């Protein structure tokens, strides 16, 4: 196969749509062709997004089986893993750094979907589910908006926050992961930052350390958002210093 042909195989390679021989030929080529290696990695990440989109709920029996199995499975030792590329072992490329949002959204989507509902035993579970679904729809609409802009920030204690703003919808979504639970009897309250004046944008669910929340109210020109710890039920204005401040993406 000519080199020109090999360059065009990045898509088929990323989709596992090549024969073994073709895959070998492509990997040998990509080991020396930075452009192909990079493109193949990007397209592979793209294919993973196709996979995330067909996520289904995992049967709890499967998790029990897998968790039992791993106790008897010896792990590969990190020390025996060669630091250089093993023959035929895939492709190296520069580090990807933009995983943040997709990972957040994936985790939160899986979590904010049926997993939560499965654990809700309240009598009004279906009404909760409907409300939750409407919220999820609104969140999805912001994320899918053609003018959705994103900014991420490291928050205190290793938590991560991502804010997605859609100008056309005048709405914002805050996605948190790894936030410590608020102190007992307290909640996290979200605020729009109107040039230094804080306007309440609702409360976070104190039971969840990873969550996507639609900020309540219109963005209405707010320059950013903040999070404070407030007494249960929330406050009319902040009563403590913000634990996080984030500027909205331009």
């Amino acid at each position: 196969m000519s080199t020109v042909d090999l360059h065009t195989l990045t898509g088929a390679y990323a989709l596992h749509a090549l024969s073994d021989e073709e895959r070998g030929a492509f990997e040998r080529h990509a080991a020396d062709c930075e452009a192909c290696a990079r493109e193949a990695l990007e397209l592979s990440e793209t294919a993973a997004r196709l996979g995330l989109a067909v996520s289904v709920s995992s049967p709890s029996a499967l998790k029990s089986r897998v968790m039992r199995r791993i106790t008897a499975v010896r792990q590969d030792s990190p020390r025996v893993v060669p630091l250089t590329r093993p023959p035929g072992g895939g492709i190296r490329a520069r580090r990807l750094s933009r995983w943040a949002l997709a990972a957040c959204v994936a985790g939160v989507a899986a979590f904010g979907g049926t997993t939560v509902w499965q654990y809700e035993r309240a009598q009004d579970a279906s009404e909760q589910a409907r409300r939750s679904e409407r919220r999820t729809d609104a969140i999805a609409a912001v994320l899918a908006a053609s003018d959705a802009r994103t900014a991420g920030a490291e928050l205190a204690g290793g938590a991560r926050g991502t804010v997605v703003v859609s100008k056309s919808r005048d709405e914002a979504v805050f996605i948190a992961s790894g936030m410590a639970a608020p102190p007992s009897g307290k909640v996290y309250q979200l605020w729009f930052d109107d040039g230094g004046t804080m306007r309440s944008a609702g409360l976070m669910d104190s039971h969840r350390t990873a969550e996507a929340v639609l900020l309540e109210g219109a963005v209405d020109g707010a320059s950013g958002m903040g999070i404070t710890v407030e007494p249960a039920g929330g406050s009319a204005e902040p009563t403590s210093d913000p634990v996080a401040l984030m500027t909205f993406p331009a």
Partner: protein
Amino acid sequence: MKEAVHIGKNPSAEPDLQDLMGSVALGDQQAFAGLYDVVAGPVIGVVRGVLRDQAQSEEVAQEVLVEVWRSAARYRRERGSVINWVLTLAHQRAVDRVRSVEASAAREHRAALLDHAPEYDEVTEQVEARLEREQVRRCLRTLTELQRQSVTLAYYRGLTYREVAESLALPLGTVKTRLRDGLIRLRDCLGVTA
């Protein structure tokens, strides 16, 4: 009262997937439980799409998830995201299974499948990752019909590009190109960069 809902077993320790992988590689079973909660759904979805058989899908998904545990130390962040590493493994194992079965017996069954290009809706029938799905759905609509069919047949059905060409009655070169430019368009629409 609403029950507290936690991610994994420890609600205050939901680190990002890279960190989880690091702990899993060191034998941390609780970290693996957390990783499992994030990746199991997509793994099963991908495997089921390719294998189209409940029992086989669960078997392969289980193999994949155990392999994630076993080979966690092989994960290298410079080769991509954790989810990509896991889903690449899942897709590859599902495709391997289909192709080995195919090689031994079920050619006719496979040929029947090829007559019918899947609609995206059919594939995503039971999808629950709503947010991701919305974005992907929107971006798939930006592809040409041929790009979309080629990409979805290859990924969601696990066909080789030769099989895609056969089922769409297109020249091999055309399919190679459609797979590449279709994925590039998706990449740009989804904002995937490396």
